[in-house]
């Protein structure tokens, strides 16, 4: 049974998606989706445990041996990403039946669950597969499914946001597939480990360099690295809040995973950072993302849009960590991957609670929210503190490791920039807190707490933010393990 866990990880949700359409009923479809998502979470917990005790798992799909068949290769890094994706799915899904979204789609809710499961399948598949072309296919499954999810937003602008996401996402994925094709032309294989072994023999000719460029730009579009982030704020602003929470916490994380996988495993540290000067441009773009996106976030009137821009800035921190090309830097990147999923998930779920009472997310409409929805606003504030990086929250741990890594890599300027950009986060979170707690609620403003079905998942994520702000052995231990494996014999 445990031998087939890697296949189960993807197959469970993949089979449940069409089953949701077959059962039709909205409650039945929800129960089916919920049980498979929780089962997928259990599978990824078991997988992570297995990887940490016995080492990398290699699973041959259909019994066809690698490199000819498709191999699922699970090491500490992707086991951790699987855990993040399925865990966030497991927390966010119970939120949906009471959220605005289901009231909008009504009896057609089973179609939403189908798209949600397909999106989850795609993201899990990208993380688990060891085959480059398979990665592209899963990437497109997740991207098409998330496009459907975004288009369900309450405002008609969700439609144009979804269309833009589709076009830009397809261009990104096509870039990746061009890169994979060129690598296949140069090495004659699609298995990632096999590619890594054969690449040095090609003498890193121009085909390989072109493939590298296509793959990195494609991945940068997918993970919304500044300045290729323009699709993200629109998509996250107009998507239903549940979907924003799920995508903000998982989709870009999987994008970062793809970038790490190609830079460090497929092309290898030597080619990516010594033959080609990739580290510096990545570092510059990451710092620009931190500052430009945070500054734009300060000037947003819509809280949801502000959080979306803040996501772009946070992606900057993840890319900054890996651009240091040290074990410490990679550890910080992977830890932040985990912590950011927790904090952005919590913040967008809090927004979802607010959406239950009022349709507007403009800051002036948040006036007095601290009294109108005390529990929701407390959760938002706690999530905001974690985003800033206040001690005793998960956000602090990420920033701490990032700064240590920057100092260890002899980059004091980068360490200072991390601290300064965190202050920008203080400003944009403060604007919301100020409106919520220090302004009088306007007369006749909708008052009343969100139902428990919405508050419990939100507070669960907040609790995890605090828990992993104090007890850091799981994320840091796994991240260190993964970073060591990625750097191999490197520095």
């Amino acid at each position: 049974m445990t031998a087939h866990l890697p296949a189960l990880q993807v197959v469970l949700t993949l089979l449940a998606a069409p089953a949701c359409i077959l059962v039709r009923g909205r409650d039945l479809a929800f129960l089916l989706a919920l049980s498979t998502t929780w089962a997928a979470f259990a599978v990824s917990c078991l997988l992570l445990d297995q990887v940490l005790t016995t080492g990398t798992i290699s699973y041959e799909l259909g019994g066809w041996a690698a490199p000819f068949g498709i191999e699922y290769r699970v090491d500490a890094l992707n086991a951790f990403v699987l855990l993040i994706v399925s865990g966030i799915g497991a927390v966010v899904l119970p939120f949906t039946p009471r959220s605005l979204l289901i009231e909008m789609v009504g009896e057609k809710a089973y179609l939403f669950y189908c798209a949600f499961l397909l999106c989850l399948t795609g993201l899990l598949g990208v993380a688990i597969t060891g085959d480059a072309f398979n990665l592209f296919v899963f990437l497109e499954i997740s991207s098409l499914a998330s496009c459907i999810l975004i288009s369900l937003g309450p405002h008609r602008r969700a439609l144009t946001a979804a269309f833009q996401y589709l076009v830009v996402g397809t261009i990104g994925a096509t870039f990746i597939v061009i890169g994979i094709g060129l690598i296949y032309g140069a090495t004659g294989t699609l298995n990632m480990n096999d590619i890594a072994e054969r690449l040095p023999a090609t003498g890193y000719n121009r085909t390989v360099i072109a493939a590298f460029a296509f793959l990195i730009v494609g991945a940068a579009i997918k993970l919304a690295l500044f300045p290729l982030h323009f699709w993200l704020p629109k998509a996250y602003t107009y998507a239903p809040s549940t979907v924003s929470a799920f995508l903000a916490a998982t989709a870009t994380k999987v994008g970062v995973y793809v970038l790490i996988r190609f830079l460090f495993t497929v092309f290898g540290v030597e080619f990516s950072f010594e033959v080609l000067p990739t580290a510096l441009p990545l570092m510059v773009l990451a710092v620009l993302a931190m500052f430009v996106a945070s500054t734009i976030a300060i000037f947003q009137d819509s809280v949801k849009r502000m959080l979306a821009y803040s996501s772009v800035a946070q992606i900057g921190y993840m890319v900054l960590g890996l651009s240091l090309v040290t074990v410490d830097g990679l550890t910080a990147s992977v830890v932040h991957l985990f912590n950011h999923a927790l904090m952005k998930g919590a913040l967008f779920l809090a927004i979802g609670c607010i959406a239950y009472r009022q349709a507007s997310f403009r800051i002036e409409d948040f006036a007095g929210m601290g009294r109108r929805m005390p529990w929701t606003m407390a959760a938002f504030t706690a999530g905001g503190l974690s985003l800033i990086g206040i001690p005793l929250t998960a956000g602090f741990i990420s920033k701490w490791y990032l700064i240590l890594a920057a100092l260890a890599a002899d980059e004091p300027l980068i360490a200072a920039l991390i601290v300064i950009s965190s202050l920008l986060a203080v400003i944009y979170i403060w604007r919301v807190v100020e409106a919520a707690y220090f302004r009088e609620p306007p007369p006749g403003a909708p008052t009343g707490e969100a139902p428990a079905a919405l508050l419990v998942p939100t507070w669960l994520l907040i609790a995890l933010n605090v828990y992993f702000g104090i007890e850091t052995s799981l994320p840091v231990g796994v991240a260190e393990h993964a970073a060591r494996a990625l750097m191999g014999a490197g520095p």
Partner: protein
Amino acid sequence: MVDFVGLYNYWIVVFLMMAGLYVVIEHGNLVKKMVGLTVFQAAVFVLYITLGKVRDGTAPIVAEGIEIYSNPLPHVLILTAIVVGVATLALGLALVVRIREAYGTIEEDEIGDQDGPAI
């Protein structure tokens, strides 16, 4: 010069790719954008199929007298990519229909004019 002409498949790939991408960026009409996207993807199909071609090779059939044959793997990969492309096109056009219902137009700038500030 011979090389230049001999690689004509790749020149076609580059031309189609750039033409498709240009249409996606330049045109405000959403249906034309989808057309551009499809041309862009089709260029990649041609790239893969070209990679699999072996000179004087035939179809990969196990039969007497067939010794040199084209690499079938890129063909199989592209079958998958075509399916992905069709799904993308279908979803894109479905969204265009919904956008037309909601806005009464499929021109990007006219859509942009209709909505007020962000919510």
